[in-house]
């Protein structure tokens, strides 16, 4: 399998060779066409003029001499012939002699026409262009004026000239081949760079950048490759961070469970403190369970994203009331007032489970991050073609710089990862995914110290 550049090179070199050969024949052809035509018309002119020297009657010695004199100063070879034998006068008889003109030519000349021909003339032992002019008087072909010019074919050039010709053609082809090869290498360099980059990438190195030197097809390909490499790199980084985070998140409870259970096993913890320790173990185990559940859910949702979720009409008020019922005890435990105001007429297009989970997560978050004795409001109202669910708290709020990242996995405003929040850092990420699945939108407004307001707009059923 030859390289692409080699094949293109071969193609171009073949074309060059063909062109050289073609030019050779074209030159020969043009030479014959133009040169011969030119010579012929010059001869015609001269012949017609010389013809006027003939005044009729016999072709006398003076005319032969005059034409011979002219011949001495002419570019063409000119001579007059009056020998009837040369003029095929004896032709009805079988003649064993090679005459200067043939029978057909004689007929034409007799008619007063001039005859031109091109080809090998045995008498001159070479290719000639010749034109014959009749000297006719009373139907008698008294003589002819014969003008000829040797036809030097290109192939008849002397050895030296032919050598120079072929050498130049060869040299030209060689230089052309070299230049084409150089040019191809230049054109092909970005492709080669690209290929090397792909090789590196398949070896696992995603942090690569191919230089883009042109805006042609290859340049665009390189650019697209760079973008793809960057995207893959980013994804790879995210994957790595995610893995690191997950293992970190899991390691903390595991080390707790390991440490405390070993402590109990070795009897380092007193009997009366054991209940409390076991409570701690259960809490950490729950945390792990929740974390793994949420991870599972996220993974599932990533798969689900591929397929369309079936939505159906749901009375929003009913769902929200169920959520209220579910979370009322949690709120009460923190002495938080959960205020629910719902427009009963709102029917949304959604999946009930997912809708419920969105609301639960958001309200739970609001409760978790609110101080005791504060108020959390859950409201739903019509907003154009959407039903707007508003979850408002008076909690600690989110700093403005964290807001854009709040829905990223494991992103925490509180970087210390204090477990006092109890969150895994996946909650909002899950909500965000669910919102997208239901073709809804979520807006988070927050101010540190004052509280957070989350707006979720869910499509209403079309009337």
């Amino acid at each position, binding site marked *: 399998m030859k390289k692409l550049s080699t094949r293109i090179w071969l193609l171009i070199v073949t074309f060059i060779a063909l062109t050289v050969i073609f030019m050779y024949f074209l030159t020969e052809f043009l030479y014959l066409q133009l040169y011969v035509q030119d010579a012929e018309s010059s001869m015609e002119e001269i012949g017609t003029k010389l013809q006027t020297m003939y005044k009729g009657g016999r072709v006398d010695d003076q005319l032969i001499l005059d034409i011979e004199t002219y011949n001495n100063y002419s570019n063409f070879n000119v001579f007059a012939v009056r*020998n*009837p034998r040369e003029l095929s006068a*004896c032709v*009805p*008889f079988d*003649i064993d*002699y090679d005459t200067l003109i043939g029978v057909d030519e004689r007929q034409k000349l007799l008619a007063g026409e001039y005859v031109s021909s091109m080809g090998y003339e045995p008498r001159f032992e070479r290719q000639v262009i010749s034109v014959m002019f009749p000297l006719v008087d009373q*139907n008698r072909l008294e003589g002819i004026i014969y003008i000829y010019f040797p036809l030097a074919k290109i192939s008849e050039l002397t050895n030296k000239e032919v050598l120079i010709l072929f050498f130049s053609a060869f040299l030209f082809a060689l230089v052309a081949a070299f230049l084409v090869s150089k040019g191809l290498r230049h054109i092909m360099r970005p492709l080669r760079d690209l290929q090397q980059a792909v090789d590196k990438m398949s070896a696992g190195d995603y942090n690569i950048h191919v230089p883009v030197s042109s805006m042609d097809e290859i340049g665009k390909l390189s650019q697209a490759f760079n973008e793809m490499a960057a995207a893959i790199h980013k994804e790879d980084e995210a994957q790595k961070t995610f893995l690191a985070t997950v293992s970190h998140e899991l390691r903390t409870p595991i080390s707790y469970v390991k440490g405390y259970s070993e402590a109990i096993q070795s009897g380092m913890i007193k009997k009366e403190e054991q209940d409390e320790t076991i409570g701690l173990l259960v809490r950490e185990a729950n945390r792990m369970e929740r974390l793994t559940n949420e991870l599972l859910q996220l993974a599932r949702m990533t798969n689900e994203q591929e397929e369309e979720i079936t939505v159906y009409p749901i009375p929003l008020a009913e769902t929200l009331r169920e959520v209220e019922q579910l979370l009322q005890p949690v709120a009460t435990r923190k002495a938080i007032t959960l205020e629910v105001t719902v427009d009963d007429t709102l029917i949304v297009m959604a999946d009930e489970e997912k809708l419920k989970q969105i609301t639960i997560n958001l309200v739970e978050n609001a409760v978790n991050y609110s101080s005791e004795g504060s108020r959390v409001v859950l409201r739903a109202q019509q907003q154009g073609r959407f039903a707007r669910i508003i979850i408002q708290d008076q909690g600690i709020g989110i700093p403005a710089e964290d807001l854009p990242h709040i829905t990223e996995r494991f992103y925490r405003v509180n970087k210390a990862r204090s477990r006092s929040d109890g969150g895994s850092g996946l909650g909002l990420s899950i909500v965000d995914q669910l919102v997208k699945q239901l073709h809804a939108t979520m807006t988070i407004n927050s101010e540190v110290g004052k509280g957070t307001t989350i707006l979720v707009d869910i499509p209403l059923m079309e009337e």
Partner: protein
Amino acid sequence: MRKQLLLLLMVSLVLVGCSGQKYEPVTEKAFVATVNILEPSLSFFSATGEPLTTWQLDKAYTGATLVGDNVVLYGFGLDRAVAYALATGEKQYELKTGTGVTNVYYDDEQALTYVANGETNRIHSYSLTGEPLKQAQVGNYPMSMLVHDGELYSINYKDTVLTVLDAKQLTKKRQFTIDKSANGLLVPHNTTELWVGGHGEGAKPNTDVKRYDLQTGELLGKLPMPLMPIEFTQRNNEVYVVSHGRNTVYAVTTDGTPIWKQDVGANPFAIATLGETIFVAGYDDHTLYAIEDGTITKALDVQKGPFKLLVRED
């Protein structure tokens, strides 16, 4: 009834097949005709130059000869010569000559037709009904023939010998040296000379008529002539020579004294006399000229390429 009809049809077919080509009869006793070879035809004229008829020939005939009241048509590329009766224009008999016929000569005294063949280099004699009689091997390319005093003189056109045969038996009697490309034979009245014309060899045109002794073949002398004297005819004591290289008719006495000369036609090959008139055919200008007392009196258009003349006297 049907059988009879079929028979009739077959008979008529055979008859038609036998008769073949039929030409317009030539009833005039005295006539002159040109044998035109570029587009084979015969152009007949009366002694006064009135056009009589034209025979358009259907084959590539290259010559014709009068054999009594028949005209024998022959061609170099044709394998048989055909005799047509002038009086009826109908075919009389065939001569199975084979290809290569260069000339057909008829001698009234012998009542024989001689056929020269340039391929086999033989001369054949035929009876007046077309029966082949004798044959003889001669030199290279026999062409011009003349019977005189029981002897057949034959020029070998591509050879340097003239062959003399017995006119009846075609046995070789003698031969003597002549020029190559010789053409035209004549024994002037009341002489023992044989005059031979010719084109000349190679590029060099011939410019004289050679006089040989009939018996010994000795070169007696040369008569300077215009370029290429190739045909003769004679009347009384005058010999007329046509020179095709100079388009000239030259009149001399039998002893070679010039009488007059006249430019005539373009590339004339054939000359003949009919009564007081000399006829010359111009090959290149397709014209038959009548000369009386050394001046051209008539120019008659003929078909292309008149190469030979046929003359029948009263």
